[in-house]
């Protein structure tokens, strides 16, 4: 409002107020998910489109005859422990039978106790991770604290579902410490369905890795009542060793996994990162 005196007189062409437009967009984004959900349940109509109506994959395909996604491969794994969380992803970026780079990070630190790893279409992944990081910053400013991992988990689910009819081609794994300091891992599908688990694998090598984790970590069923703790009793170094072993195994048979694995370990002391070499073929 202090800038009002600097504005040109009203008779000239009105200038666009980008801050107001941005704020308008932001308010829509904040309240839109609840509003959309209420609209959908009220009208019983499952095809409500988001306010900004982006091109849906079906219309894009029928109009341009074009597939707008691409799979850049890669595998992500996360394991939750009693007071730590390990999140790991390989660093190969590929398209088709080609390798684009051997040193691409799929992991993004969103908050001090919250890290996301995503595999799939890198264009969508970059946009999604930037979006979440920006929302985390806004949350920090509004609420004077960093986002907790469970809060980020819910936000990611809503962000993915917001694009239910033109999804982010991203298979995500969120890992970190919850508000009590216990490890937590949340795994997602492309449209935001999520579950808190003790461990997860997503991406091209997930079908090779998940059975091994199931065998080694023996998670209790999430359907049990009372709910049993899903975190593994393994120590931090044992969990990191397990991650190295599963990545080495996946690299043998999955062409999209290899080069290096980036392992991020979050515990109450902070976050540390290490890189382990994998087979490059």
């Amino acid at each position: 409002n202090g800038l009002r005196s600097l504005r040109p007189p009203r008779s000239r062409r009105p200038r666009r107020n980008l801050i107001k437009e941005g704020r308008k967009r932001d308010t829509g984004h904040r309240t839109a998910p609840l509003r959309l959900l209420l609209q959908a349940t009220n009208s019983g109509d499952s095809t409500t489109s988001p306010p900004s109506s982006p091109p849906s994959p079906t219309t894009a395909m029928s109009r341009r005859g074009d597939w707008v996604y691409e799979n850049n491969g890669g595998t992500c794994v996360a394991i939750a422990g009693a007071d730590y969380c390990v999140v790991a992803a390989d660093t190969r970026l590929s398209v088709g039978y080609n390798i684009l780079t051997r040193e691409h990070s799929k992991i993004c630190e969103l908050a001090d106790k919250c890290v996301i790893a995503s595999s799939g279409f890198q264009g969508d992944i970059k946009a999604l991770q930037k979006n979440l990081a920006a929302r985390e910053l806004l949350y920090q400013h509004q609420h004077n604290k960093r986002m907790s991992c469970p809060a980020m988990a819910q936000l990611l689910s809503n962000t993915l579902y917001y694009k239910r009819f033109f999804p982010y081609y991203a298979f995500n794994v969120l890992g970190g410490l919850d508000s009590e300091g216990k490890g937590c891992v949340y795994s997602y599908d492309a449209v935001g369905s999520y579950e808190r688990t003790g461990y997860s694998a997503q991406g091209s090598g997930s079908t090779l890795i998940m059975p091994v984790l199931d065998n080694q970590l023996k998670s209790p069923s999430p359907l049990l009542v009372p709910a049993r703790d899903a975190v593994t009793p393994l120590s931090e170094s044992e969990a990191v060793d397990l991650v190295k072993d599963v990545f080495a195994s996946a690299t043998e048979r999955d062409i999209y996994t290899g080069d290096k694995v980036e392992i991020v370990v979050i515990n109450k002391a902070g976050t540390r990162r290490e890189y382990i070499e994998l087979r490059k073929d």
Partner: protein
Amino acid sequence: MEIDEHVGCAMSGLIADARTLVEHARVETQNHRFSYGEPMTVESTTQAICDLALRFGEGEEESMSRPFGVSLLIAGHDENGPSLYYTDPSGTFWQCNAKAIGSGSEGADSSLQEQFNKELTLQEAETIALSILKQVMEEKVTPNNVDIAMVAPNYHLYTPAEVEAVIARL
């Protein structure tokens, strides 16, 4: 009135305006639960209410013709423990340990100053609050003309029987 399970508020002034603010706060707290899966802190809830207070100069979107003529006492419990905030029509808010608003607020505030201390139990606080209210009320205090609510840690509005029990201790 209840804003969320962990936040309630008391109002003084134009009650109709207060209902608009409370409705807005309710929507904001539920949006927060929807987006982040956690309850909104009391300070953020208060901030959300006060954001509405001075929407005059925007032009097209949501601009008002007059301010909200109401003061609110917002009481809640979050991860920082219990807290109390006092808002006025300018949109400023203060955090307090004890506050009175309304026509009898000056006398009530000074009584609170004398009688409040940090070690009060819930029972003692009920008795003190009601006795101060009795001092500034013209009519006699009965279960039908007095409301008591507490947030400990969830919001609860006392039934007439519970109010009667507090009155009996005065």
